[in-house]
């Protein structure tokens, strides 16, 4: 497949449709898969008439009152009474119904970036605060987020950093802070880790509350990355934020999340983003640059990412304009390898090809079958025939063609399309379109984001 040359100036300029890269359904679907959890038919149509840049505007700054929506969801979460099942279910529901899906998409990104595992934290309230913290900074300042993360009880407990005694500085938290969240491997020494651990002494999580015990703080001089002083925890964070490696880490992780999992970008390609991100640490700006860019709307990005289980299932719900029981869904997604609030290691979900193996493919396809066949526990909430009729289809043939555009934007090889559409005539269109939607969602292309 022809890839565009990777000239940074071209890559990060805003995409302007032309004869060679016209704005069409294919790119509208691509944008909504990456910047949201997929789109319903009206959103795709709106995007077609708005063009790419106005659609990005809408994704970044929705007109509906997202704050009010999120406040309502927060209240429901509170009422769910600190249960992990409730928290997972409400988060999935929020992803499906939110007027600001990019915010949830980025909250999920940070959940993998700063992974606190509820099984270790063992306190649903703290997990709830943790996810809220990620959401409140999801498109804000990375600097503020990092400063907040080192004070977040769930994060500290999750990484085994809830007790930082003077007598035995604890490296459990500071090592991933330096190696995974900021600088990356090879950018620091063991002495840097030891010094950072000393700087964090005095901080404890006691009965779910963050506490600072001055007598437990080691106030000797510490050395970190060539700097020297009686550093406290926030000084360590500030020093880490001064390193270009930190900005590069975030840009690389976000490139993988929004643009491509298949190819690591060259340093030269991302250099302009790293430079501007290091100056502002504005996540919103970084996301905006990426989403508007030529490289985002190029073959370097198109279908170069595999949907995680959450994207797979929430995408179906978006397309079919309905909500199913997210309590059950959260559990089914856990079996597919993405248990919300339980990221497997400090590196989050590895993503990419690791999502897919014989067991998870069968699992995804069986989930699609359960969702579309009207059986328990999901019932018949998903009704592709009704959706197609709502959008003007009157026959099974036209509905099938519609569903092919809705789920795959018609972007499959011609011979495959012919095979898919060959027998759609049916006595019971509702059942037939359920089966057809299932065929759509089990196509190899549907697993690609």
């Amino acid at each position: 497949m022809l890839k565009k040359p990777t000239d940074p100036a071209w890559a990060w300029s805003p995409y302007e449709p032309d004869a060679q890269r016209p704005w069409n359904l294919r790119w509208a679907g691509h944008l909504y898969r990456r910047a949201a959890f997929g789109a319903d038919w009206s959103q795709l149509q709106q995007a077609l008439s708005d063009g790419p840049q106005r659609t990005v505007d809408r994704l970044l700054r929705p007109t509906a009152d997202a704050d009010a929506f999120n406040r309502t969801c927060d209240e429901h979460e509170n009422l769910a009474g600190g249960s992990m099942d409730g928290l997972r279910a409400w988060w999935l529901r929020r992803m499906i119904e939110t007027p600001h899906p990019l915010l949830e998409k980025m909250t999920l990104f940070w959940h993998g970036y700063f992974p606190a595992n509820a099984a270790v934290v063992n306190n649903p309230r703290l997990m709830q605060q943790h996810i809220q913290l990620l959401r409140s900074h999801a498109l804000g300042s990375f600097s503020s987020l990092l400063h907040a993360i080192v004070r977040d009880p769930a994060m500290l407990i999750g990484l085994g950093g809830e007790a930082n005694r003077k007598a035995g500085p604890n490296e459990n938290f500071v090592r991933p802070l330096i190696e995974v969240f900021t600088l990356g491997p090879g950018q620091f020494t063991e002495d840097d880790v030891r010094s950072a651990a000393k700087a964090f002494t005095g901080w404890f999580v006691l009965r779910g509350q963050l506490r600072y015990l001055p007598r437990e703080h080691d106030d000797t001089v510490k050395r970190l990355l060539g700097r020297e002083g009686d550093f406290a925890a926030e000084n360590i964070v500030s020093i880490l934020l001064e390193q270009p490696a930190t900005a590069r880490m975030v840009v690389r992780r976000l490139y993988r999340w929004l643009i491509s999992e298949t190819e690591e970008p060259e340093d030269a390609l991302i250099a302009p983003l790293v430079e501007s991100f290091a100056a502002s640490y504005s996540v919103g700006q970084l996301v905006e640059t990426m989403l508007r860019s030529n490289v985002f709307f190029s073959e370097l990005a198109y279908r170069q990412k595999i949907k995680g289980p959450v994207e797979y299932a929430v995408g179906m719900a978006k397309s079919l304009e309905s909500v199913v029981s997210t309590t059950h869904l959260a559990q089914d997604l856990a079996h597919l390898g993405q248990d919300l609030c339980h990221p497997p290691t400090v590196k989050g979900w590895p993503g990419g090809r690791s999502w897919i193996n014989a067991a998870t493919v069968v699992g995804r396809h069986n989930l699609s079958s359960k969702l579309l066949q009207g059986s328990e526990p999901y019932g018949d909430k998903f009704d592709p025939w009704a959706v197609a009729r709502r959008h003007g289809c009157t026959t099974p043939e036209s509905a099938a063609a519609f569903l092919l555009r809705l789920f795959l934007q018609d972007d499959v090889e011609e011979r495959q399309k012919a095979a898919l559409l060959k027998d759609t005539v049916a006595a019971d269109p509702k059942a037939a379109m359920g089966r057809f939607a299932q065929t759509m969602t089990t196509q190899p292309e549907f697993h690609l984001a």
Partner: protein
Amino acid sequence: MSFTRRDFLRATLGAPAFLSLGRTALSQSRRDTVLVVIQLTGGNDGLNTVVPYGDDEYARNRTTLRLPTGELHKIDSLLAFHPRMEAFLRLYKEGRLSIVQGVGYARTDGDHDRAMRVWHTADPDPSRRPTGWLGRVADHLLSIAPMDTGAVFVGPIARPFALNAEHAVVPSLRSAQDLILRTQQQEQPSYQADDALLQFLRQSCQDACVKSNRLQSVVESGSGVGGYPPFGLAGDLRTIAQLIRADLGIRVFFAELGGGGIGGFDNHANQLGNHCAVLHQLAESVAAFIEDLQRDGTLDRVLLMTFSEFGRTVRENGRRGTDHGAAAPLFLAGGRVKGGFVGTHPSLNDLDHGALKVHIDFRRVYATVLDQWLGLDSRTILGGRFEPLDVLQT
């Protein structure tokens, strides 16, 4: 009845589908060794499992929990199986069962979660290990065979940490149905895609379909339907036997006994009856599994091992129970174990905080199954070198 892989392919695939899979299908026809691990949750009382009835200290320390000598299944003049573990004596006599004595790790502190985490991570300092030892195996297998599911958990409880992996998705299954497609798929495109990632997805979808069909034929053939007792563990092992026969490329299976609710192996009071029940379930379930696989020769590529987070105190605690101990025996069963004992029984006089001393570091057992059975490098997976035991036929 004898199954071969070729029979399955003949039975479940038309020739065109088979040809279109080409190299992928052929490369999967290695009939690899598999490991089945059974976790006994709660801390199993090794002294009342493999009973040192010939040692007077046993009777002295176990005033109410002492098992009647006449009912034991004697192995030699010192040791015998628990009265409800007759099936294990049978396996032992047939050379299908090895008993590794005095296994554990130094400085057990008696906390269930911590001890379990040590066994799961294969690290005495588990807080520094984000993955389980079998999760690391799954990660390694993923790098060799990206479309296979290297490891699975089979059972009704949450997946144990031993299977926590950094890269691999390790599924939890309740039955073979979880790996069988509910609805027959419309034919997927079999032609080559230009794009590498799309091609990977196409092959994965086809591969999943082929494996689903193969498993379906095993299930429909009635594999292992009879012969398994009505215990949860037996059902899980029956599922595992089906998955092994279907040759799905799964190398590691994990099942569990005792942690799903009340009871289990943690018996601080009134131990006798409950312990009888779980040991009986263990012995009968494992024996049914071994005998099922033996019928068609599958057993030669299967090794089963048990473990528990710790043993229990030698002296009973005044409430007809025992408290958390240290060393305990561990069982290995399969077609290619040497049989008999490995190591000597720990002394009942030379104790550490009332518990038997550890003779064999548990990681030596892990190293044995990794190096000599799964053919993986134990040093990479365990983060150090541990001397393997002489327990497997070469």
